[in-house]
């Protein structure tokens, strides 16, 4: 066996990968979908959502940060992990204020799509009805923290792709929020609507103004196919 390939299994399927990849990258490469929310290719992993948790040799680990290794036994598509991931999505639904029917991004929202894929029904956990601030100060974009899942994608995209530092976090625990690089809202930052950080939000938290419903309902990415199918249908030729 070559030194540059490690072999391991995901749900009993043998997977070969370069040794410097994470479990999630290796799975993507061979068309195995590990559900994820805060991860985004081209950004360093954040480790926030824990949706991509898999079991490695029986122990839960984060697939977006855990490196592949020779011979590891990875469990992904199991009933236990499926329900634990669904519980996390449920937590996010009751933590934030999400109203899918009236939301501009319904049908292209990754939170909503994961809820469908993981078969979440009406949340049984208590709704928190938290007060969250909306920032509409910027001429071209608005930031609606009601829909924020604190995935940190905008934070990382602004730093690593836009080289700007527009976003960050604030406070701790249940009071943690997305914060912006000014004393007085997004208008005083150097954010533009064309920044990469504007296009990475998985929900409708960061939205460009005056641009609603450009893709009609019914033609949105997750209207016909579940989230993850873009990975599963990938032709594997390695």
């Amino acid at each position, binding site marked *: 066996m070559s030194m540059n390939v490690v072999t391991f299994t995901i749900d009993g399927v043998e997977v070969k990968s370069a040794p410097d990849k994470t479990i999630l990258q290796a799975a993507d490469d061979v068309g195995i979908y590990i559900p994820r929310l805060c991860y985004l290719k081209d950004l360093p992993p954040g480790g926030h959502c824990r949706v991509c948790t898999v079991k490695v040799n029986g122990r839960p680990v984060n697939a977006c940060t855990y490196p592949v290794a020779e011979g590891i036994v990875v469990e992904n598509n199991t009933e236990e992990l499926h329900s634990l991931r669904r519980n996390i999505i449920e937590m996010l639904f009751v933590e934030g204020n999400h109203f899918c029917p009236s939301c501009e991004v319904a049908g292209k929202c990754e939170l909503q799509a994961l809820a469908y894929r993981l078969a979440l029904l009406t949340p049984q956990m208590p709704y928190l009805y938290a007060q969250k601030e909306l920032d509409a100060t910027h001429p071209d974009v608005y930031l609606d923290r009601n829909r924020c899942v604190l995935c940190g994608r905008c934070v990382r995209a602004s730093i690593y792709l836009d080289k700007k530092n*527009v976003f960050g*976090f604030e406070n701790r625990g249940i009071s943690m929020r997305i914060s912006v690089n000014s004393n007085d809202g997004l208008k005083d930052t150097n954010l533009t609507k064309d920044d990469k950080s504007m296009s990475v939000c998985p929900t409708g938290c960061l939205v460009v103004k005056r641009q609603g419903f450009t893709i009609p309902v019914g033609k949105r990415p997750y209207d016909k196919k579940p989230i993850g199918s873009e990975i599963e249908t990938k032709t594997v030729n390695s």
Partner: protein
Amino acid sequence: MTHHYREQIKNIANKYGNDRGYLMNIARDIVKELGYISEEVVADLADVLNIPMVQVRDMVSFYSFFPRKTLGKNVIRVCNAVIERMKGADEVSKAFEKALGVSFGETTKDNLFTLLHTSCIGLSDQAPGALINNVPLTNLKPTDIPQIINDIKSGKNVSDLPQSRVLLNLKKEGEVICAPMESGKAIRNALNMKPEEVIGEINKSRLRGRGGAGFPTAMKWDFCRKQKSSVRYLICNADEGEPGTFKDRVILTEYPDLVFEGMTIAGYAIGAKEGIMYLRGEYAYLLDNLEKVLAKRRHLGLLGEHICGREDFSFDIRIQLGAGAYVCGEESALIESLEGKRGAPRDRPPFPVQKGYKNEPTSVNNVETLCCAARILEKGGEWFSKIGTKDSTGTKMLSVSGDCEHPGVYEVEYGITIENLLELVGAKNTQAVQVGGASGKCVAPKDFGRRISFEDLPTGGSIMIFSKNRDLLEYMYQFVEFFVEESCGWCVPCRAGTTLLEKKLRQILDGKGTAQSLAELRRIAQTIKLMSRCGLGQTSANPVLTTIYDFADLYAERIKEEDGKLMTFDLQKAMKVGIEASGRIKEGVK
């Protein structure tokens, strides 16, 4: 835009070389001078340090000791942790409210006092306690409070108050930590060996980390030493924040030399030139003495350049104060905090021994572990390995509090049963023992034959005793509240999950739960445990998970359902206001 305190901020930042890595210290000094960190200050500080404002806000908004709004001249932090509330902290809190005429979270109109609550401050053995302007007061009684307020108003120093007295409460001295020591002996022994041999001696002792996780110390040092790097760091974790633990307070007060001796030996073993002690902000009052001990050791040639005359070994220690965040006791969060950032734990791998402080190999060791290491180099690994049990060698410093006659610190041999411990501390009629703090395990009487050890009941040192007349689940609820307060917020299961767990448990304790609620409680708790990012999150559901089976009766008592149905909503009552307002008052609606 310039503001009037810009010069002050400039001077403070300058004192730390305008180094962003010292943001914790800079923020502390700003709070000392200005009282709080306003948005203006955030902007100015960002400008002075030439970093984004959002990063400064991120850091300062994370820690309890960096207020964002102006506080009163005197800041009173009443500890309302579990043991404190058992010992009357609620009554003391009320007395403070009455004496000051404000509620918690408020400042008096004359700006003299701000009244706040705080988590465990490491004084559960002399509870209830409080910090006033960072000075600890102990054994408070509600009747003391008016006098305390009057004394401060009349200009008396808090440290001159009769309640400003921290008792040592060292109740049992063992042969490892509390034995007499000769400064420098262990270091000289170590320096007569190669670093690898020092690690070998530790290996022979089978010493395991005293923070609770029990990782073999020799293995940690060996991993760290073997990393390819010219710079390595040794960190002493003195962020003792687990509710009900205060043994490091005693060690740092009585045996600071032993700790620094251990740090120096560890530095030699792993090849570090710099050691950092991360001391919890609540222990700021210990700082002066610790600095004096460091100075004395430098003077004796036990720290600094060419230790004990050795050309090839230089090592020094600095102390970093924390700022009120339990999660910083987690080693990777501690490192983030040391780097001047929010104390959010890191995903592993890489482990700190691979990429730690400033991305260099770093060994993080508990205060007590380092003390043990010093003793091992003084008396030999063989000697140490004969104390305790096979898998848990040595002694353990236990912080005992709650319902017992003699709360305090006990150095016991590993392997002691709960039963024997209860006898030792004078506990009677015990309902349960919380081993390992809020994140530990609630042990029922049927298990009192179990032993304090890594292989059976591991603990970082916290032992809290609940007698039979206590409403145990209410205390478990307070532990859950603690985790809500202390979750860093980085990952979903811990951030949202702890709050949801708290709500669900409250519902059940209030008699509004069904059998279904119990199932929900378990589901939330399991998700937190299996999916959270760090040790704090993974153990934050333990107050529920370790009682839901062993104390199932206590939960069952609270469930008042009939035929699977429970009246949680009283329709008549809910409609009363509306019916009255509409004037349609019917017979029978009251």
